[in-house]
């Protein structure tokens, strides 16, 4: 019951937060000098033509009326129409979503699968050479500019050695669209050469995106394991003669992962923020690159659509994380 109450309370908070976010972005994007209507109408358009277009788009009405309309439109599930692609924003986002999800999931897997064991090793060999080396790498992971890392990796692995492709998702035509995830689609197609091609295209962007998240996972796991190692039950298990490998990789790890789970929300934030920059560098056709293009063209509807969408996804991920934390660790649920 308490968990149900928590879920309802958090959902109730999410809605006004998103409404506020919409209002903030709305005012930011419209109070501003840049005028998309004249850009859209083209250089040769007369003043009257520009005004006509402005009326047609409803941009001549008071801001609050426009905002109220936008809320109404959102409630009916419509994110608006992009001024430049002239397609519904939702369709644009939907078409580009699989690319971003694929990239983000692979990056998340890299961060977790490599990060957790490294964090455990770092804690077990505390203050040895291994620990110092791993900590230097994690500090570096949080300090390096992702776009620069991307360029360096492109320079070395793509341009210099020629081992990996420079950018994009695949060479040649995309696979038949079944799930939209090229990894899955090429496998369904049964074409392993193309599957390898997709994996090769994914490697550089996914690793670049994963690097700061990986560093965060290592730090949290290390801290969590160090804390759990001092608990009484570990001392007891040691005294009982349970093999230390079993203690560490089963009992200690399970207990320290609780704190790592709560960080998935943070990781997701790092990955989503990184996606905007990384997708632009690697010409990855996802929603991050879409948002950046939309911003450059003052495409209100697309910018708003992306922000609302990102806010909703971010909010829901944090909600799910909080709920799973409450279930995994009921001790903290009341707080």
């Amino acid at each position: 019951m308490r968990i149900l109450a928590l879920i309802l309370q958090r959902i109730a908070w999410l809605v006004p937060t998103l409404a506020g976010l919409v209002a903030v972005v709305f005012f930011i994007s419209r109070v501003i000098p840049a005028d998309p209507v004249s850009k859209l109408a083209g250089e040769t358009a007369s003043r009257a033509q520009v005004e006509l277009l402005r009326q047609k788009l409803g941009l001549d009405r008071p801001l609050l009326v426009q905002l109220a309309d936008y809320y109404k439109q959102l409630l009916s599930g419509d994110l608006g129409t992009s001024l430049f692609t002239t397609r519904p924003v939702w369709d644009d986002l939907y078409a580009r979503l699989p690319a971003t999800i694929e990239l983000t999931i692979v990056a998340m897997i890299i961060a977790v699968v490599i990060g957790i064991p490294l964090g455990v090793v770092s804690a077990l060999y505390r203050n040895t050479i291994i620990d110092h080396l791993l900590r230097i790498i994690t500090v570096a992971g949080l300090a390096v500019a992702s776009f620069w890392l991307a360029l360096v990796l492109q320079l070395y692995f793509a341009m210099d050695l020629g081992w990996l492709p420079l950018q994009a998702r695949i060479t040649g035509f995309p696979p038949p669209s079944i799930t939209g995830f090229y990894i899955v689609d090429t496998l369904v197609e049964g074409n392993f050469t193309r599957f390898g091609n997709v994996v090769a295209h994914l490697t550089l962007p996914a690793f670049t995106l994963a690097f700061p998240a990986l560093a965060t996972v290592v730090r949290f796991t290390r801290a969590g394991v160090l804390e759990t190692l001092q608990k009484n039950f570990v001392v007891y298990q040691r005294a009982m003669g349970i093999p230390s490998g079993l203690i560490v990789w089963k009992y200690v790890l399970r207990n320290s992962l609780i704190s790592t789970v709560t960080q998935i929300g943070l990781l997701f934030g790092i990955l989503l923020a990184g996606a905007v920059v990384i997708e632009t560098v690697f010409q990855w056709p996802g929603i991050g690159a879409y948002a950046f293009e939309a911003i450059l063209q003052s495409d209100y509807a697309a910018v708003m659509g992306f922000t609302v969408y990102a806010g909703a996804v971010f909010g829901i991920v944090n909600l799910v994380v909080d709920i799973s934390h409450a279930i995994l660790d009921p001790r903290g649920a009341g707080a």
Partner: protein
Amino acid sequence: MSTAIDVLRKLLRDPAAAAGLLIILLLVLVAIFAPLLATHPEAIWDMNPRQRLLPPSDMYVFGTDRMGADIYSRILFGARITMVIASVAVGAALLIGVPIGLISGWTQNWLGEALMRVSDIFLAVPQIVLAIAISQTLGPSIENVILALSVTYWPWFTRLVHAEVRSLKNETFIEAAIALGVPTWRIILLHVLPNVASPIIVRTSIGMGFTILTASALGFLGLGAPPPAPEWGRMIAESREFLPQAWWYALAPGLAIFLVVMGFNLLGDGLRDVLDPRIRRAGARR
């Protein structure tokens, strides 16, 4: 004052924190003395087509860029832009975020609640998404980057201070002060604020690093200081056209960003260990 010296002494005993402090000191010195340290200070703004895209040599330590300017000299002047953006943006975020956190943590009524909900709105998307939207709509300039970064960073201070103040309010010495009839503003300024100073200082150091990274990303995306300015992120963006031949072009600016952000992160970690013994070196960044 003696506590500040004490903290400094403990910091210098930690090699990582001492390294961080050294890097930041170096950055400040470089920013101040850029005109003296630069080997080609005059070549920051001018075009020298004949020295275009030269590899590193004795004359040009980090090579030259597409305008024929010395990259080493540009990096030094870029340190000024980086320092100004980061310190003004984080300073403004402090000035907005800390008072709001103090008020909302102390009052715990509808006002405090409303202020926290407003800060939640800004935390509802990753910082860079809002920062890109703001700096694009305002137009590319250093002032607008600073504005975009401070508008999106203050909630981190608010949230931190809010949580600290709430737990402090239940402490006996605060209750005693209230019972003695000490004016509220006096309690907040003289008893609460000094007790939340440590986490604020730690967050400021880590926030400087984080802000420098975000600012350079904005510069890279073309939303920072306009073209001739030696902004590190923009220099990296410019280099893309000339890869792989001019491999040195992006090298120095990227290393500069890396070194400086690492400096602030190391100092932040060290400060956390010294100032707040409860928390060990854990993960939370930003």
